[in-house]
Structure formats: structure tokens, C-alpha cells
């Protein structure tokens, strides 16, 4: 039997079951980013400090983390509390504004943590290839609950 990590080239393995939440209602970008960050803490990829650091990073550096229409990639630095390579995803029932010039509003908030500046790169590239597909994005947005969202990511090719 081929396991999920092998089948997805690492993407599925980077998203544990507890790392995805579908259809959350968040008042603003801060809450959405915190929810995605909290999932990294829940899966042991980051500390609580890391979640604060992600919010600070967006405040200080601006909303450049909204890298494509509707999609934010939230993260802080390894030294801010990155424990292990881990990714998370929160899909929002109602999109929120980040203040991005080109890519607001956002309804998909990905987050990641890494213990250093290298170990996450392979999984990050796999994630980029995954979200490059409009079909994958449509399936993520259509997922009604956490279980379905988890399956969409695990079944991605």
C-alpha cells in the first residue's frame, strides 16, 4: 500500500488531520491568521509565541503574504517558535480583507512553521504546485467540513 506522503510527494504528510479547519467564521485577518497559527500549535509544529509572531509580521511587513487572489500564506521565522515542519489551512465562510493591493479578499489562509530556513522548502514547493491548480482550489473551497477538507489535500496529486 502506498501511504499518503508518498502519493502526494510530501504534501499530505505536511497536513495532519488536526491541521485543517473548514468554513470558519472570522471577524478579521488577525483572527483568521491566529486560527491557522493555532493549528500549528495543536499539531506540535510551533509554540504559542509563533502565533503572535505571525500576526506581528503581517503588521510590520504588510499584507504581502496574500500571494494570489484569495490566498494568504502566513508564517513567522523559525526562531520565533518554529518546532517542526508543519502546515495548516483554514478556509473561511466569509472572506476577510488583509489590505492587499491586488489579492483581497482572502478566504484561504495557509500557515506553516519550520525549525530552520531549509526543512520546509520541499513541502512548500509541493503546496505551491497544489494551489496553482484552479481545480484543487475549487475542491478546497467546496469542502464542507474538516474531514472533507483533509481528504481533498490527502488525495491531491
Amino acid at each position, binding site marked *: 500500500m502506498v501511504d499518503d506522503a508518498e502519493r502526494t510527494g510530501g504534501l499530505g504528510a505536511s497536513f495532519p488531520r488536526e491541521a485543517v479547519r473548514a468554513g470558519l467564521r472570522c471577524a478579521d485577518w488577525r483572527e483568521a491568521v491566529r486560527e491557522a497559527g493555532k493549528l500549528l500549535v495543536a499539531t506540535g509544529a510551533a509554540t504559542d509565541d509563533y502565533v503572535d509572531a505571525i500576526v506581528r*509580521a503581517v503588521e*510590520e*511587513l*504588510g*499584507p*504581502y*503574504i496574500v*500571494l*494570489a*487572489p484569495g*490566498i494568504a*500564506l502566513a*508564517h*513567522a*521565522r*523559525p526562531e520565533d517558535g518554529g518546532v517542526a515542519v508543519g502546515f495548516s489551512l483554514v478556509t473561511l465562510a466569509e472572506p476577510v480583507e488583509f489590505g*492587499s*493591493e*491586488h*489579492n483581497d479578499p482572502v478566504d484561504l489562509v495557509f500557515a*506553516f512553521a*519550520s525549525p530552520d*530556513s531549509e526543512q*520546509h*522548502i520541499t513541502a*512548500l*514547493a509541493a503546496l*505551491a504546485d497544489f*494551489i*496553482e491548480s484552479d481545480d484543487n482550489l475549487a475542491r478546497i473551497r467546496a469542502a464542507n467540513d474538516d474531514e472533507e477538507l483533509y481528504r481533498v489535500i490527502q488525495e491531491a496529486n
Partner: protein
Amino acid sequence: MIRVFAVCGMGLGTSAILKTRLRAALDATGVDYMLDVTDASAARGQQADLIFTSAELAEGLKGTSAKVVVVKNFMDREEINQKVKEAIEELQS
């Protein structure tokens, strides 16, 4: 040798994704290049010919000797390919 940087706030996320797209686009032009990622503050001290970054970070990179190119959608290979092609043509003209 053209020196190219993918720049984001920390040099860890967005720029790492951008680097993979830039590599493909630069390979297609056939130019001899060096490509690296860095964060916005370190980028100001680097000698570079081309810097690719987001609209939000481009403002802070004014004053560097490099040509700064704004990428709107980091997932859009077409946009990135087109902007790389134009930037290389401008450098070589």
C-alpha cells in the same frame, strides 16, 4: 551573469515559492543568471540586477541599484514568465 533576487518579508515563504517560478522563467530566456532568495532588509545591501517582489515590499526597495519588478500573483506563471522576459530584454538592450 545576471544577479536576480526573489524578495519577501522574511525570505522563507513567498520568496521561496517565487524562486521556483523564477528559475523556470529564467531558464526559458537562456540567460546566464544567479538566483537567490532574501528578505527585504537584506536585499537593500545586495548587489543585484533584478529584484522580484510584491507591491507591498517594492516601495522599501527603491534606491537600490537593481531594477525592481512587482509580481501581483505569485502563483501565476504566465505573469512571472512575461515579466522576466521583459526585464531581461530591458537589461540587455
